[in-house]
Protein backbone atom coordinates (compact mmCIF):
# COMPACT_ATOMS: atom_id res chain seq x y z
CA UNK A 1 0.00 0.00 0.00
CA UNK A 2 1.02 3.62 -0.31
CA UNK A 3 2.67 5.93 2.21
CA UNK A 4 0.83 6.90 5.41
CA UNK A 5 -1.18 10.07 5.94
CA UNK A 6 0.46 12.61 8.25
CA UNK A 7 -1.90 14.45 10.58
CA UNK A 8 -0.56 17.45 12.46
CA UNK A 9 -2.43 18.26 15.67
CA UNK A 10 -4.31 15.96 18.04
CA UNK A 11 -7.46 17.94 18.81
CA UNK A 12 -11.03 17.06 17.80
CA UNK A 13 -10.41 17.61 14.06
CA UNK A 14 -7.13 15.66 14.08
CA UNK A 15 -8.58 12.82 16.15
CA UNK A 16 -11.55 12.62 13.80
CA UNK A 17 -9.35 12.62 10.70
CA UNK A 18 -7.03 10.00 12.20
CA UNK A 19 -9.95 7.76 13.08
CA UNK A 20 -11.54 8.12 9.65
CA UNK A 21 -8.36 7.43 7.65
CA UNK A 22 -7.23 4.59 9.93
CA UNK A 23 -10.67 3.00 9.83
CA UNK A 24 -10.42 3.00 6.05
CA UNK A 25 -7.32 0.83 6.45
CA UNK A 26 -4.73 3.53 5.93
CA UNK A 27 -1.63 4.03 8.08
CA UNK A 28 -1.80 7.32 9.96
CA UNK A 29 0.92 9.19 11.81
CA UNK A 30 -0.48 11.71 14.28
CA UNK A 31 1.99 14.36 15.45
CA UNK A 32 1.13 16.40 18.56
CA UNK A 33 3.36 19.06 20.09
CA UNK A 34 1.93 18.70 23.60
CA UNK A 35 2.37 15.72 25.90
CA UNK A 36 -1.15 14.39 25.34
CA UNK A 37 -3.91 14.20 22.78
CA UNK A 38 -7.28 15.98 22.95
CA UNK A 39 -6.53 19.52 21.86
CA UNK A 40 -8.08 22.64 23.40
CA UNK A 41 -11.00 20.88 25.16
CA UNK A 42 -8.55 18.71 27.10
CA UNK A 43 -5.51 20.99 27.35
CA UNK A 44 -7.60 23.97 28.48
CA UNK A 45 -9.80 21.89 30.77
CA UNK A 46 -13.22 22.60 29.30
CA UNK A 47 -16.20 21.54 31.38
CA UNK A 48 -19.45 20.47 29.70
CA UNK A 49 -19.54 20.80 25.93
CA UNK A 50 -22.12 22.48 23.73
CA UNK A 51 -24.53 21.10 22.66
CA UNK A 52 -24.39 17.65 24.29
CA UNK A 53 -23.57 18.77 27.86
CA UNK A 54 -21.14 15.84 28.05
CA UNK A 55 -17.98 16.49 30.03
CA UNK A 56 -15.09 17.30 27.67
CA UNK A 57 -12.91 14.73 29.42
CA UNK A 58 -15.47 12.01 28.61
CA UNK A 59 -16.44 13.07 25.11
CA UNK A 60 -12.99 13.95 23.77
CA UNK A 61 -11.41 11.27 25.97
CA UNK A 62 -13.42 8.66 24.07
CA UNK A 63 -12.13 10.06 20.78
CA UNK A 64 -8.56 9.87 22.06
CA UNK A 65 -9.01 6.28 23.23
CA UNK A 66 -10.47 5.22 19.90
CA UNK A 67 -7.50 6.65 18.03
CA UNK A 68 -4.81 5.38 20.42
CA UNK A 69 -6.23 1.87 20.29
CA UNK A 70 -6.34 1.76 16.51
CA UNK A 71 -3.38 -0.30 15.24
CA UNK A 72 -3.19 1.78 12.08
CA UNK A 73 -2.39 4.94 14.05
CA UNK A 74 1.07 5.86 15.23
CA UNK A 75 1.01 8.73 17.74
CA UNK A 76 4.07 10.96 18.14
CA UNK A 77 3.75 13.25 21.18
CA UNK A 78 5.96 16.17 22.27
CA UNK A 79 7.18 16.92 18.81
CA UNK A 80 6.60 19.20 15.86
CA UNK A 81 7.19 19.12 12.14
CA UNK A 82 10.30 21.17 11.49
CA UNK A 83 10.66 20.77 7.75
CA UNK A 84 8.36 19.52 5.04
CA UNK A 85 9.34 18.78 1.46
CA UNK A 86 8.57 16.61 -1.53
CA UNK A 87 5.74 16.16 -3.93
CA UNK A 88 2.12 15.10 -3.48
CA UNK A 89 2.16 11.35 -2.88
CA UNK A 90 5.74 11.47 -1.62
CA UNK A 91 6.22 14.08 1.08
CA UNK A 92 8.94 13.95 3.68
CA UNK A 93 8.42 15.56 7.07
CA UNK A 94 11.32 16.13 9.44
CA UNK A 95 10.41 16.13 13.11
CA UNK A 96 11.97 18.33 15.76
CA UNK A 97 13.04 15.31 17.81
CA UNK A 98 14.82 13.87 14.78
CA UNK A 99 13.64 11.33 12.30
CA UNK A 100 11.83 11.62 9.01
CA UNK A 101 8.32 10.63 8.11
CA UNK A 102 7.26 9.73 4.60
CA UNK A 103 3.68 10.66 3.83
CA UNK A 104 1.41 10.54 0.81
CA UNK A 105 -0.57 13.52 2.02
CA UNK A 106 -0.94 15.69 5.09
CA UNK A 107 -3.81 17.12 7.10
CA UNK A 108 -3.20 20.21 9.22
CA UNK A 109 -5.46 20.21 12.26
CA UNK A 110 -3.43 22.69 14.23
CA UNK A 111 -6.33 24.49 15.85
CA UNK A 112 -6.46 27.97 17.32
CA UNK A 113 -5.14 30.00 20.25
CA UNK A 114 -7.39 31.55 22.87
CA UNK A 115 -7.38 35.35 22.71
CA UNK A 116 -5.16 36.78 25.43
CA UNK A 117 -7.34 39.23 27.38
CA UNK A 118 -4.29 41.23 28.46
CA UNK A 119 -4.56 42.81 25.01
CA UNK A 120 -7.74 44.60 26.11
CA UNK A 121 -6.40 46.25 29.28
CA UNK A 122 -9.49 48.48 29.67
CA UNK A 123 -11.47 45.41 30.69
CA UNK A 124 -9.32 44.76 33.73
CA UNK A 125 -7.88 41.32 33.02
CA UNK A 126 -4.49 41.05 34.68
CA UNK A 127 -5.25 44.10 36.81
CA UNK A 128 -8.08 42.73 38.95
CA UNK A 129 -7.97 39.09 40.03
CA UNK A 130 -11.75 38.72 39.79
CA UNK A 131 -11.70 39.46 36.08
CA UNK A 132 -11.39 36.03 34.48
CA UNK A 133 -11.89 34.39 31.09
CA UNK A 134 -14.44 31.84 29.93
CA UNK A 135 -11.59 29.32 29.86
CA UNK A 136 -10.91 29.92 33.55
CA UNK A 137 -14.58 29.49 34.42
CA UNK A 138 -14.59 26.25 32.42
CA UNK A 139 -11.64 25.11 34.55
CA UNK A 140 -13.36 26.14 37.80
CA UNK A 141 -16.30 23.94 36.83
CA UNK A 142 -14.39 20.99 35.32
CA UNK A 143 -12.02 20.82 38.30
CA UNK A 144 -14.98 20.51 40.66
CA UNK A 145 -13.84 23.52 42.71
CA UNK A 146 -16.84 25.54 41.60
CA UNK A 147 -17.15 29.14 40.46
CA UNK A 148 -15.36 31.33 43.00
CA UNK A 149 -13.80 34.80 42.96
CA UNK A 150 -10.04 34.25 42.66
CA UNK A 151 -9.31 37.18 45.02
CA UNK A 152 -10.80 35.68 48.18
CA UNK A 153 -12.57 32.47 47.15
CA UNK A 154 -16.05 33.86 47.81
CA UNK A 155 -19.08 32.81 45.80
CA UNK A 156 -19.94 35.67 43.44
CA UNK A 157 -23.40 37.23 43.89
CA UNK A 158 -23.25 39.04 40.64
CA UNK A 159 -21.43 37.93 37.51
CA UNK A 160 -21.02 39.88 34.27
CA UNK A 161 -20.04 38.06 31.11
CA UNK A 162 -18.62 40.36 28.42
CA UNK A 163 -19.01 39.05 24.89
CA UNK A 164 -16.76 39.70 21.89
CA UNK A 165 -13.53 39.97 23.87
CA UNK A 166 -10.93 39.61 21.14
CA UNK A 167 -13.54 39.34 18.41
CA UNK A 168 -15.15 41.87 16.07
CA UNK A 169 -12.66 44.50 17.13
CA UNK A 170 -10.70 46.52 14.58
CA UNK A 171 -8.74 48.16 17.38
CA UNK A 172 -6.82 44.96 17.87
CA UNK A 173 -6.98 43.69 14.30
CA UNK A 174 -9.54 40.99 14.91
CA UNK A 175 -12.51 41.58 12.70
CA UNK A 176 -13.99 38.11 12.78
CA UNK A 177 -16.77 36.71 14.92
CA UNK A 178 -15.43 33.79 16.93
CA UNK A 179 -18.68 31.97 16.38
CA UNK A 180 -18.87 29.93 19.57
CA UNK A 181 -18.54 32.46 22.41
CA UNK A 182 -22.23 33.50 22.55
CA UNK A 183 -23.37 29.91 22.93
CA UNK A 184 -20.53 28.99 25.27
CA UNK A 185 -21.30 32.03 27.43
CA UNK A 186 -25.00 31.29 27.69
CA UNK A 187 -24.08 27.70 28.56
CA UNK A 188 -21.65 28.87 31.24
CA UNK A 189 -24.21 31.35 32.55
CA UNK A 190 -26.63 28.47 33.06
CA UNK A 191 -23.95 26.41 34.78
CA UNK A 192 -23.11 29.28 37.12
CA UNK A 193 -26.79 29.77 37.97
CA UNK A 194 -27.17 26.06 38.55
CA UNK A 195 -24.23 25.92 40.95
CA UNK A 196 -25.03 29.23 42.64
CA UNK A 197 -28.83 29.68 42.57
CA UNK A 198 -28.59 32.96 44.47
CA UNK A 199 -26.28 34.53 41.93
CA UNK A 200 -27.32 36.90 39.17
CA UNK A 201 -25.68 36.56 35.78
CA UNK A 202 -25.68 39.34 33.21
CA UNK A 203 -24.42 38.99 29.65
CA UNK A 204 -23.34 42.19 27.92
CA UNK A 205 -23.66 41.81 24.17
CA UNK A 206 -23.62 43.68 20.87
CA UNK A 207 -25.38 40.96 18.89
CA UNK A 208 -26.29 37.49 20.06
CA UNK A 209 -25.16 34.75 17.71
CA UNK A 210 -26.41 31.54 19.25
CA UNK A 211 -26.93 30.30 15.72
CA UNK A 212 -29.17 27.49 14.46
CA UNK A 213 -30.74 25.24 17.04
CA UNK A 214 -28.76 26.86 19.87
CA UNK A 215 -31.36 29.64 19.81
CA UNK A 216 -33.84 27.57 21.79
CA UNK A 217 -31.80 25.66 24.32
CA UNK A 218 -29.08 28.18 24.98
CA UNK A 219 -30.34 31.69 24.25
CA UNK A 220 -33.90 31.28 25.44
CA UNK A 221 -33.24 28.44 27.84
CA UNK A 222 -30.76 30.58 29.73
CA UNK A 223 -33.31 33.37 30.03
CA UNK A 224 -36.46 31.40 30.68
CA UNK A 225 -35.20 28.68 32.97
CA UNK A 226 -32.09 30.24 34.43
CA UNK A 227 -33.08 33.93 34.51
CA UNK A 228 -29.88 35.08 32.83
CA UNK A 229 -30.18 38.72 31.77
CA UNK A 230 -28.94 40.00 28.41
CA UNK A 231 -28.01 43.67 28.20
CA UNK A 232 -27.18 45.36 24.93
CA UNK A 233 -24.05 47.24 25.79
CA UNK A 234 -20.40 47.11 24.88
CA UNK A 235 -18.56 47.70 28.10
CA UNK A 236 -16.17 50.64 28.02
CA UNK A 237 -14.08 49.77 31.04
CA UNK A 238 -13.84 47.59 34.11
CA UNK A 239 -12.47 49.30 37.22
CA UNK A 240 -12.87 48.77 40.93
CA UNK A 241 -14.35 50.78 43.78
CA UNK A 242 -11.95 49.06 46.15
CA UNK A 243 -14.45 46.37 47.12
CA UNK A 244 -16.14 45.21 43.96
CA UNK A 245 -15.54 45.50 40.26
CA UNK A 246 -17.17 48.46 38.57
CA UNK A 247 -18.44 47.85 35.06
CA UNK A 248 -18.97 50.93 32.92
CA UNK A 249 -20.61 51.26 29.54
CA UNK A 250 -23.80 52.34 27.89
CA UNK A 251 -27.08 50.48 27.85
CA UNK A 252 -27.82 51.32 24.23
CA UNK A 253 -31.49 50.31 24.34
CA UNK A 254 -32.31 52.95 26.95
CA UNK A 255 -29.50 55.34 26.03
CA UNK A 256 -28.22 55.35 29.60
CA UNK A 257 -24.71 55.04 30.92
CA UNK A 258 -24.05 52.04 33.17
CA UNK A 259 -21.85 52.03 36.23
CA UNK A 260 -22.64 48.85 38.11
CA UNK A 261 -20.77 46.79 40.70
CA UNK A 262 -20.03 43.13 40.06
CA UNK A 263 -18.24 40.40 41.98
CA UNK A 264 -16.85 38.68 38.95
CA UNK A 265 -16.35 39.72 35.34
CA UNK A 266 -15.89 37.00 32.73
CA UNK A 267 -14.32 37.71 29.34
CA UNK A 268 -15.83 35.57 26.59
CA UNK A 269 -12.50 35.25 24.81
CA UNK A 270 -12.43 34.73 21.08
CA UNK A 271 -10.48 32.34 18.90
CA UNK A 272 -7.23 33.72 17.52
CA UNK A 273 -5.36 32.06 14.68
CA UNK A 274 -2.87 29.62 16.19
CA UNK A 275 0.19 31.64 17.29
CA UNK A 276 2.27 29.13 15.31
CA UNK A 277 0.47 29.80 12.02
CA UNK A 278 3.30 31.88 10.53
CA UNK A 279 5.70 29.02 11.21
CA UNK A 280 3.24 26.43 9.93
CA UNK A 281 2.73 28.51 6.83
CA UNK A 282 6.42 28.60 6.02
CA UNK A 283 7.16 24.98 7.01
CA UNK A 284 4.29 23.49 5.01
CA UNK A 285 4.27 26.08 2.25
CA UNK A 286 0.61 26.89 2.64
CA UNK A 287 -0.96 30.33 2.34
CA UNK A 288 -2.70 32.00 5.26
CA UNK A 289 -5.91 33.96 4.69
CA UNK A 290 -6.08 37.66 5.47
CA UNK A 291 -7.02 36.97 9.08
CA UNK A 292 -4.03 34.70 9.69
CA UNK A 293 -5.81 31.36 9.59
CA UNK A 294 -4.71 28.62 7.21
CA UNK A 295 -6.36 29.45 3.90
CA UNK A 296 -8.67 27.22 1.92
CA UNK A 297 -8.22 26.89 -1.83
CA UNK A 298 -11.92 26.53 -2.49
CA UNK A 299 -15.16 25.96 -0.71
CA UNK A 300 -17.20 23.57 -2.81
CA UNK A 301 -15.18 21.03 -4.77
CA UNK A 302 -12.66 20.03 -2.13
CA UNK A 303 -13.63 21.52 1.21
CA UNK A 304 -10.36 20.97 2.99
CA UNK A 305 -7.81 21.81 0.30
CA UNK A 306 -5.06 24.33 1.13
CA UNK A 307 -3.02 26.28 -1.42
CA UNK A 308 -0.58 23.36 -1.64
CA UNK A 309 -1.81 20.18 -3.36
CA UNK A 310 -1.70 17.23 -1.02
CA UNK A 311 -1.90 19.34 2.12
CA UNK A 312 -5.32 19.61 3.68
CA UNK A 313 -6.73 21.56 6.60
CA UNK A 314 -9.62 20.95 9.01
CA UNK A 315 -11.13 22.46 12.13
CA UNK A 316 -10.26 25.74 13.84
CA UNK A 317 -6.91 25.92 12.00
CA UNK A 318 -8.82 27.50 9.12
CA UNK A 319 -11.09 29.79 11.14
CA UNK A 320 -13.21 29.87 14.30
CA UNK A 321 -15.01 26.54 14.49
CA UNK A 322 -17.26 24.53 16.78
CA UNK A 323 -16.09 21.15 18.10
CA UNK A 324 -18.74 19.20 16.21
CA UNK A 325 -17.99 20.97 12.93
CA UNK A 326 -14.27 20.42 13.49
CA UNK A 327 -14.98 16.73 13.87
CA UNK A 328 -17.04 16.71 10.67
CA UNK A 329 -14.28 18.55 8.81
CA UNK A 330 -11.72 16.07 10.13
CA UNK A 331 -13.65 13.27 8.47
CA UNK A 332 -14.04 15.29 5.28
CA UNK A 333 -10.31 15.99 5.21
CA UNK A 334 -9.56 12.30 5.72
CA UNK A 335 -11.72 11.37 2.72
CA UNK A 336 -10.06 14.10 0.63
CA UNK A 337 -6.60 12.90 1.69
CA UNK A 338 -7.44 9.24 0.99
CA UNK A 339 -8.83 10.04 -2.45
CA UNK A 340 -5.91 12.28 -3.20
CA UNK A 341 -3.38 9.64 -2.20
CA UNK A 342 -5.18 6.98 -4.23
CA UNK A 343 -5.25 9.34 -7.23
CA UNK A 344 -1.55 10.04 -6.88
CA UNK A 345 -0.78 6.31 -6.80
CA UNK A 346 -2.87 5.52 -9.87
CA UNK A 347 -1.39 8.50 -11.72
CA UNK A 348 2.11 7.22 -10.90
CA UNK A 349 1.20 3.71 -12.13
CA UNK A 350 0.02 4.93 -15.52
Amino acid at each position, binding site marked *: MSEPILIVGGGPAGLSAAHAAASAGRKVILVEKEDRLGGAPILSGYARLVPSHEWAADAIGAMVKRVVENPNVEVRLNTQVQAFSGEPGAFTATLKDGGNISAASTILTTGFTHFDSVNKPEWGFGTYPDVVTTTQVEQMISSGRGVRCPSDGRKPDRVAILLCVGSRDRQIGREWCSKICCTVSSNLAMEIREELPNS*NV*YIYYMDIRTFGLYEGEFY*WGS*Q*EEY*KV*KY*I*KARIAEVTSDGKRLLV*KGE*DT*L*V*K*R*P*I*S*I*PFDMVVHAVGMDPNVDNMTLSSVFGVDLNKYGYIGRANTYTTLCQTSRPGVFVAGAASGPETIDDSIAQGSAAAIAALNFAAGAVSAAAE
Partner: protein
Amino acid sequence: MPIHEKSLIRPENLREQENLVIEGMDVSGHWSTFIESRAVTDYNEALQEEIAALPGGENIHRCWQCGSCTNACTVNAVNPEFNPRYWIYLIRLGMEDELLRDKDIIWQCVSCNKCTYACPRDVVPEGVMKATAHWLELKGHTPKSPSMLFDEVFAGQVIKTGRIEDGLVLRDFFKRTGQPLNQPWLVAMVLGLVKRFPLAYLIKLGIATIRPDRTRGWGRARDAINEYAEEVEAQNRKALGLGAKGAK
Protein backbone atom coordinates in the same frame (compact mmCIF):
# COMPACT_ATOMS: atom_id res chain seq x y z
CA MET B 1 -17.53 71.10 23.49
CA PRO B 2 -21.09 71.33 22.23
CA ILE B 3 -23.63 68.99 23.77
CA HIS B 4 -24.95 66.66 21.10
CA GLU B 5 -27.58 64.76 23.06
CA LYS B 6 -29.38 67.58 24.80
CA SER B 7 -32.53 65.49 24.85
CA LEU B 8 -30.85 63.20 27.37
CA ILE B 9 -30.31 65.95 29.92
CA ARG B 10 -33.07 65.99 32.47
CA PRO B 11 -34.04 69.29 34.07
CA GLU B 12 -33.92 67.73 37.55
CA ASN B 13 -30.31 66.73 36.94
CA LEU B 14 -29.17 70.26 36.22
CA ARG B 15 -27.40 71.92 39.13
CA GLU B 16 -26.83 75.65 39.35
CA GLN B 17 -25.53 77.81 42.19
CA GLU B 18 -27.38 81.09 42.50
CA ASN B 19 -24.43 82.79 44.17
CA LEU B 20 -21.03 81.28 43.76
CA VAL B 21 -17.61 82.82 43.75
CA ILE B 22 -14.59 80.62 43.17
CA GLU B 23 -11.15 82.17 43.72
CA GLY B 24 -12.54 85.64 43.23
CA MET B 25 -14.36 84.64 40.04
CA ASP B 26 -18.12 85.15 40.05
CA VAL B 27 -19.68 82.02 38.55
CA SER B 28 -23.22 82.60 39.74
CA GLY B 29 -26.20 81.35 37.77
CA HIS B 30 -25.66 79.42 34.56
CA TRP B 31 -21.89 79.86 34.73
CA SER B 32 -21.91 77.26 37.49
CA THR B 33 -24.18 74.79 35.69
CA PHE B 34 -23.27 71.16 35.84
CA ILE B 35 -25.16 67.99 35.05
CA GLU B 36 -25.59 65.19 37.54
CA SER B 37 -24.82 61.68 36.37
CA ARG B 38 -27.73 59.67 35.08
CA ALA B 39 -25.82 56.41 35.10
CA VAL B 40 -27.54 53.17 35.94
CA THR B 41 -26.00 52.15 39.25
CA ASP B 42 -28.05 49.13 40.21
CA TYR B 43 -30.61 46.62 38.98
CA ASN B 44 -33.64 45.53 40.98
CA GLU B 45 -33.35 41.82 40.38
CA ALA B 46 -36.84 41.07 41.68
CA LEU B 47 -38.75 43.39 39.36
CA GLN B 48 -39.32 41.02 36.46
CA GLU B 49 -40.51 38.25 38.77
CA GLU B 50 -42.91 40.61 40.54
CA ILE B 51 -44.53 41.70 37.29
CA ALA B 52 -44.56 38.10 36.05
CA ALA B 53 -46.41 37.06 39.20
CA LEU B 54 -49.33 39.40 38.45
CA PRO B 55 -52.08 38.35 36.02
CA GLY B 56 -51.05 39.27 32.45
CA GLY B 57 -47.33 39.54 33.12
CA GLU B 58 -46.51 35.83 32.90
CA ASN B 59 -44.71 35.90 29.56
CA ILE B 60 -42.59 39.02 29.96
CA HIS B 61 -39.38 36.98 30.04
CA ARG B 62 -39.82 36.04 26.39
CA CYS B 63 -39.30 39.56 25.03
CA TRP B 64 -36.41 40.10 22.63
CA GLN B 65 -36.94 43.83 22.14
CA CYS B 66 -38.02 43.82 18.51
CA GLY B 67 -40.44 46.72 19.02
CA SER B 68 -43.41 45.14 17.23
CA CYS B 69 -45.65 46.05 20.17
CA THR B 70 -44.70 49.71 20.20
CA ASN B 71 -45.00 49.82 16.43
CA ALA B 72 -48.51 48.38 16.57
CA CYS B 73 -49.61 50.45 19.58
CA THR B 74 -52.72 52.61 19.37
CA VAL B 75 -51.64 54.89 22.21
CA ASN B 76 -48.10 55.25 20.91
CA ALA B 77 -49.50 56.70 17.69
CA VAL B 78 -50.97 59.51 19.78
CA ASN B 79 -48.29 59.79 22.45
CA PRO B 80 -44.77 58.70 21.44
CA GLU B 81 -43.85 58.56 25.14
CA PHE B 82 -46.06 55.50 25.45
CA ASN B 83 -43.60 52.72 24.64
CA PRO B 84 -44.39 49.19 25.84
CA ARG B 85 -41.13 47.76 24.42
CA TYR B 86 -39.12 50.20 26.51
CA TRP B 87 -40.98 49.44 29.73
CA ILE B 88 -40.66 45.72 29.17
CA TYR B 89 -36.90 46.22 28.86
CA LEU B 90 -36.78 48.30 32.06
CA ILE B 91 -38.75 45.66 33.93
CA ARG B 92 -36.67 42.77 32.62
CA LEU B 93 -33.46 44.45 33.71
CA GLY B 94 -34.89 45.82 36.93
CA MET B 95 -34.49 49.53 36.21
CA GLU B 96 -37.22 50.48 38.66
CA ASP B 97 -36.47 54.20 39.02
CA GLU B 98 -36.64 54.61 35.30
CA LEU B 99 -39.97 52.78 35.14
CA LEU B 100 -41.44 54.98 37.86
CA ARG B 101 -40.71 58.07 35.81
CA ASP B 102 -43.45 56.90 33.44
CA LYS B 103 -45.97 55.85 36.06
CA ASP B 104 -48.46 58.44 34.87
CA ILE B 105 -48.38 57.17 31.28
CA ILE B 106 -48.30 53.40 31.70
CA TRP B 107 -51.94 53.03 32.78
CA GLN B 108 -53.11 54.76 29.60
CA CYS B 109 -53.07 51.42 27.70
CA VAL B 110 -56.47 51.04 26.01
CA SER B 111 -56.23 47.22 25.83
CA CYS B 112 -56.82 47.12 22.09
CA ASN B 113 -54.48 44.10 21.96
CA LYS B 114 -52.93 45.03 18.62
CA CYS B 115 -49.56 44.36 20.28
CA THR B 116 -50.77 40.93 21.37
CA TYR B 117 -51.32 39.97 17.74
CA ALA B 118 -48.13 41.62 16.48
CA CYS B 119 -45.81 40.02 19.05
CA PRO B 120 -43.67 37.24 17.52
CA ARG B 121 -42.77 35.87 20.94
CA ASP B 122 -46.24 35.72 22.49
CA VAL B 123 -45.28 38.08 25.28
CA VAL B 124 -48.85 39.47 25.41
CA PRO B 125 -47.68 43.06 25.97
CA GLU B 126 -51.24 44.18 26.74
CA GLY B 127 -51.22 41.82 29.71
CA VAL B 128 -47.83 43.13 30.76
CA MET B 129 -49.15 46.70 30.69
CA LYS B 130 -52.11 45.63 32.83
CA ALA B 131 -49.83 43.84 35.29
CA THR B 132 -47.50 46.85 35.40
CA ALA B 133 -50.35 49.27 36.13
CA HIS B 134 -51.53 46.87 38.82
CA TRP B 135 -48.00 46.68 40.24
CA LEU B 136 -47.71 50.49 40.37
CA GLU B 137 -50.97 50.65 42.26
CA LEU B 138 -50.22 47.83 44.70
CA LYS B 139 -46.84 49.38 45.48
CA GLY B 140 -48.55 52.68 46.13
CA HIS B 141 -46.86 54.54 43.28
CA THR B 142 -50.11 55.55 41.62
CA PRO B 143 -53.48 56.37 43.22
CA LYS B 144 -56.51 54.42 42.17
CA SER B 145 -57.85 55.80 38.90
CA PRO B 146 -61.54 56.88 38.67
CA SER B 147 -62.31 53.89 36.48
CA MET B 148 -60.73 51.63 39.10
CA LEU B 149 -62.90 53.22 41.79
CA PHE B 150 -65.97 52.73 39.66
CA ASP B 151 -65.08 49.07 39.14
CA GLU B 152 -64.67 48.63 42.87
CA VAL B 153 -68.02 50.21 43.69
CA PHE B 154 -69.75 48.24 40.96
CA ALA B 155 -68.14 44.90 41.78
CA GLY B 156 -68.53 45.52 45.50
CA GLN B 157 -72.25 45.84 45.11
CA VAL B 158 -72.57 42.79 42.89
CA ILE B 159 -70.57 40.73 45.34
CA LYS B 160 -72.56 41.99 48.30
CA THR B 161 -76.11 41.64 46.95
CA GLY B 162 -75.87 39.72 43.71
CA ARG B 163 -77.51 42.68 41.98
CA ILE B 164 -76.89 46.17 40.71
CA GLU B 165 -78.79 49.21 41.94
CA ASP B 166 -77.78 51.99 39.51
CA GLY B 167 -78.63 54.84 41.83
CA LEU B 168 -76.53 53.40 44.60
CA VAL B 169 -73.55 52.76 42.30
CA LEU B 170 -73.71 56.36 41.19
CA ARG B 171 -73.96 57.69 44.73
CA ASP B 172 -71.10 55.60 46.02
CA PHE B 173 -68.96 56.45 43.04
CA PHE B 174 -69.56 60.18 43.48
CA LYS B 175 -68.80 59.87 47.15
CA ARG B 176 -65.52 58.06 46.58
CA THR B 177 -64.40 60.48 43.87
CA GLY B 178 -65.48 63.49 45.92
CA GLN B 179 -68.10 64.68 43.42
CA PRO B 180 -71.30 66.45 44.54
CA LEU B 181 -74.59 64.66 44.03
CA ASN B 182 -76.16 67.90 42.91
CA GLN B 183 -75.01 67.91 39.31
CA PRO B 184 -77.17 69.60 36.69
CA TRP B 185 -77.32 66.61 34.33
CA LEU B 186 -78.25 64.30 37.17
CA VAL B 187 -80.90 66.63 38.51
CA ALA B 188 -82.39 66.97 35.02
CA MET B 189 -82.42 63.20 34.59
CA VAL B 190 -84.12 62.54 37.94
CA LEU B 191 -86.71 65.26 37.32
CA GLY B 192 -87.44 63.78 33.88
CA LEU B 193 -87.93 60.37 35.44
CA VAL B 194 -90.27 61.71 38.10
CA LYS B 195 -92.35 63.53 35.49
CA ARG B 196 -92.68 60.69 33.02
CA PHE B 197 -92.56 57.44 34.99
CA PRO B 198 -95.77 55.65 36.07
CA LEU B 199 -96.33 55.99 39.80
CA ALA B 200 -96.00 52.28 40.53
CA TYR B 201 -92.51 52.21 39.00
CA LEU B 202 -91.49 55.31 40.92
CA ILE B 203 -92.58 53.75 44.21
CA LYS B 204 -90.61 50.60 43.40
CA LEU B 205 -87.59 52.70 42.46
CA GLY B 206 -87.84 54.67 45.69
CA ILE B 207 -88.01 51.55 47.85
CA ALA B 208 -85.09 49.98 45.98
CA THR B 209 -82.99 53.06 46.64
CA ILE B 210 -83.65 52.91 50.36
CA ARG B 211 -83.54 49.14 50.68
CA PRO B 212 -81.74 47.52 47.71
CA ASP B 213 -82.97 44.19 46.41
CA ARG B 214 -80.96 41.11 47.08
CA THR B 215 -80.64 37.92 45.12
CA ARG B 216 -82.16 35.16 47.18
CA GLY B 217 -79.71 32.58 48.48
CA TRP B 218 -76.73 34.77 47.42
CA GLY B 219 -74.79 34.26 50.63
CA ARG B 220 -72.84 31.20 49.52
CA ALA B 221 -71.92 32.70 46.16
CA ARG B 222 -70.79 35.89 47.93
CA ASP B 223 -68.61 34.00 50.36
CA ALA B 224 -67.02 31.98 47.57
CA ILE B 225 -66.29 35.08 45.48
CA ASN B 226 -64.88 36.94 48.47
CA GLU B 227 -62.73 34.00 49.42
CA TYR B 228 -61.31 33.77 45.92
CA ALA B 229 -60.74 37.52 45.63
CA GLU B 230 -58.93 37.57 48.96
CA GLU B 231 -56.84 34.61 47.94
CA VAL B 232 -55.75 36.28 44.69
CA GLU B 233 -55.10 39.57 46.42
CA ALA B 234 -53.01 37.86 49.09
CA GLN B 235 -51.05 36.00 46.40
CA ASN B 236 -50.36 39.21 44.49
CA ARG B 237 -49.27 41.05 47.61
CA LYS B 238 -47.03 38.21 48.65
CA ALA B 239 -45.38 38.13 45.20
CA LEU B 240 -44.62 41.81 45.58
CA GLY B 241 -43.23 41.37 49.07
CA LEU B 242 -46.05 43.38 50.61
CA GLY B 243 -47.73 42.59 53.93
CA ALA B 244 -50.79 40.31 53.87
CA LYS B 245 -53.35 43.06 54.08
CA GLY B 246 -56.07 40.97 52.46
CA ALA B 247 -58.79 42.30 50.17
CA LYS B 248 -59.47 45.72 51.67
